[in-house]
């Protein structure tokens, strides 16, 4: 029979609640920062991937294949355990006093996710009729300016659903940052469990946080999509 007694109070108030709350804040910061950076980097890689310059295209292709096809956990370990061996000591000193774990996790999440985002955006760009590029070029826009003002705004709009997926994956993948000691949501839930043996409650709280976070991301992106990007569809 069930011998476990539930005690939800430990996660709704007091010290353990504060732990969980601080974990939530770190998760939010890590996810938000990485999402923004991954999107910008993804745009850049997507444009490079379609460049007329073969070398630029090849670099982007290599980047994509490399970071898409290696495990995120290995990448996190690489940035945490590997990168400081080759970084200048000035940079390392600064990082050590400013949350090296956080920086390594954000770097790994950003780079890993940007590879997927770049491919999504590229397929969005390829679905824009080539006449749009012709119209932009014949107005006198350079290739990059045509991308910036005419092609990418349309491509990003139709890329919204896969982009939401990538943002959700990133938010959930941020839990892997606990493995290098980033005190984020999952880390703190694990701490609470270790101190109280209330694993069910602690991980229920973590589960709810990720669920709510994912729903909020979905709703925000969809709202942005409807308000800003889909204006022209309003009849």
């Amino acid at each position: 029979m069930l011998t476990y007694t539930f005690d939800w109070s430990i996660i709704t108030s007091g010290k353990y609640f504060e732990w969980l709350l601080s974990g939530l804040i770190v998760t939010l910061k890590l996810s938000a920062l990485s999402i923004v950076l991954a999107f910008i980097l993804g745009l850049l890689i997507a444009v490079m991937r379609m460049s007329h310059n073969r070398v630029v295209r090849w670099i982007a292709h290599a980047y994509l294949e490399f970071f898409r096809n290696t495990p995120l956990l290995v990448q996190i370990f690489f940035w945490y355990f590997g990168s400081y061996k080759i970084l200048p000591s000035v940079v390392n000193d600064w990082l050590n006093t400013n949350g090296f774990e956080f920086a390594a996790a954000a770097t790994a999440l950003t780079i890993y996710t940007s590879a997927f985002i770049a491919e999504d955006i590229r397929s969005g760009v390829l679905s824009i009729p080539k006449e749009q590029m012709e119209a932009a070029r014949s107005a006198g826009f350079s290739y990059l300016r045509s991308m910036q003002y005419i092609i990418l705004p349309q491509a990003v709009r139709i890329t919204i659903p896969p982009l939401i997926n990538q943002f959700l994956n990133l938010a959930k993948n941020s839990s892997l940052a606990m493995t290098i000691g980033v005190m984020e949501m999952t880390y703190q839930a694990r701490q609470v469990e270790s101190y109280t043996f209330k694993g069910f409650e602690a991980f229920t709280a973590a589960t709810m946080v990720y669920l709510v976070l994912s729903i909020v991301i979905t709703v925000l992106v969809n709202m942005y999509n409807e308000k800003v990007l889909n204006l022209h569809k309003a009849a």
Partner: protein
Amino acid sequence: MITFSGVHKWFKSLHVLNDINLHVLPGEVLVVCGPSGSGKSTLIRTVNQLEPISSGTLIVDGKDLADKNTDINKLRAEVGFVFQQFNLYPHLSVISNITLAPIKIRSTPKAEAEEQAMQLLTRVGLAEKRDAYPLQLSGGQQQRVAIARALAMKPRIMLFDEPTSALDPEMIGEVLAVMKDLALTGMTMVVVTHEMGFAREVAHRVAFMAEGIILEEATPEEFFLRPQHPRAQQFLRQLLTPMQM
């Protein structure tokens, strides 16, 4: 204004432009016609280098397109292009479609660009559509916005690639009227079209193409009343027959 000298173009083994020699004077309206697949769209697209030429010399507004020092973006800003399928930017409002290039390329202040855009919209009869989006407009309206968009750059040359071919018959007139007004202002225009009424009324010269060759080049009167080449005679017969029914 535009000079083709011995211009050839191949798509792989297909000889789409065959020894084109053509001279368009400032303020002149040249209509290019011919059966489909004759190379007339390719011809007009070489003028702003949407299609590069394979050999020969093409000089546009004093610039040699083959010259490495020719800034093609700068040249394109001086040459307005109107497409068969309009190709407005669907994510931008009508007014933004028109002001985007002046603001970003010519660095025109936004207020000034919008004022000019409104003048152009008034000229094409669509002032009340300034905040509409392209997909909310009819084909004829979209094409008139596209003409306004091209004119907003104050081009020295305007190119029209079958501007009315994608339109319902009742909308063709409104677009041709705008083009006719433009011709009366002295704009240098090259127009690929099947609208022989427009050619007869507005063109200074008509060039007839088939299989990549300019077979005949004449004034509209000569071309329509006394076409010389058998292919041109046949083309005009086919084109005019349904109209006389």
